[in-house]
């Protein structure tokens, strides 16, 4: 199932949809903080998608990456918990800052957390590692 199929009216009175997501409020705050820190220190645009990915998974992740405003400077982390699949997509410029080998190392440590059932922890750790590899922009 893709995001596109989840088209229900954005509730105004109902609690925000994000609370139906996989994270608690405290985890959301931590992820938000990690994202902002990563963006600010590197100058790249980090983005995290958690949800189902269609086959072929890599292509779907790249399609999501292209929907960002500046794909070249963006790093997308796409996670599909049910398919147990992680994809890190780096844009053309972002790839120079975060080489594929480093992305792979970050992926390894994220996968280690996910395998233990800790989605939020893995995301935060991955963001931290990727932004450290990218250095100051």
């Amino acid at each position, binding site marked *: 199932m893709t995001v*596109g199929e*989840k088209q229900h009216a954005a509730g105004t009175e109902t609690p925000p949809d994000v609370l139906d997501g*996989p994270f608690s409020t405290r985890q959301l705050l931590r992820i938000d903080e990690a994202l902002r820190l990563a*963006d600010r220190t590197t100058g790249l645009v980090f983005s995290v998608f*958690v*949800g189902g990915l269609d086959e072929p998974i*890599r292509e779907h992740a*790249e399609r999501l990456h292209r929907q960002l405003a500046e794909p070249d400077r963006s790093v997308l982390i796409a996670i599909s918990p049910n398919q147990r699949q992680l994809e890190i*997509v780096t844009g053309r410029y972002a790839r120079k800052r975060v080489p594929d080998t480093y992305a792979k190392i970050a992926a390894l440590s994220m996968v280690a957390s996910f395998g233990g059932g800790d989605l939020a922890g893995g995301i935060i750790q991955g963001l931290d590692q990727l932004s450290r590899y990218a250095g100051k922009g």
Partner: protein
Amino acid sequence: MSVTDTLLVFVGIPAAIVLVIAGLVYAGSQGGGGGAKRYRPGRPFNFTPVWFLGRPEELADSGGTALSVGAQAPALTSRTQEQAGVEAPTGGTGGASDRW
């Protein structure tokens, strides 16, 4: 102490205590903790897909709708998805994949 008194003290009071503790445990598991919403690898996990962006204005959407931090990813119209698919691939994207 009559028989009823004995029963009340040695059966009634322990039963009351057991009931109170059982009630507390049940109430605790219903409320916080989010035990039901926990992700366990290998078990199906139902949730609303989410897409996080540090700066919400960074999402290029034809409708111009921004995605607020932590908000659910906007329902992408099929047109948007088609556009994204048709757009010349930026090429040179890199990254990594992994499974767990």
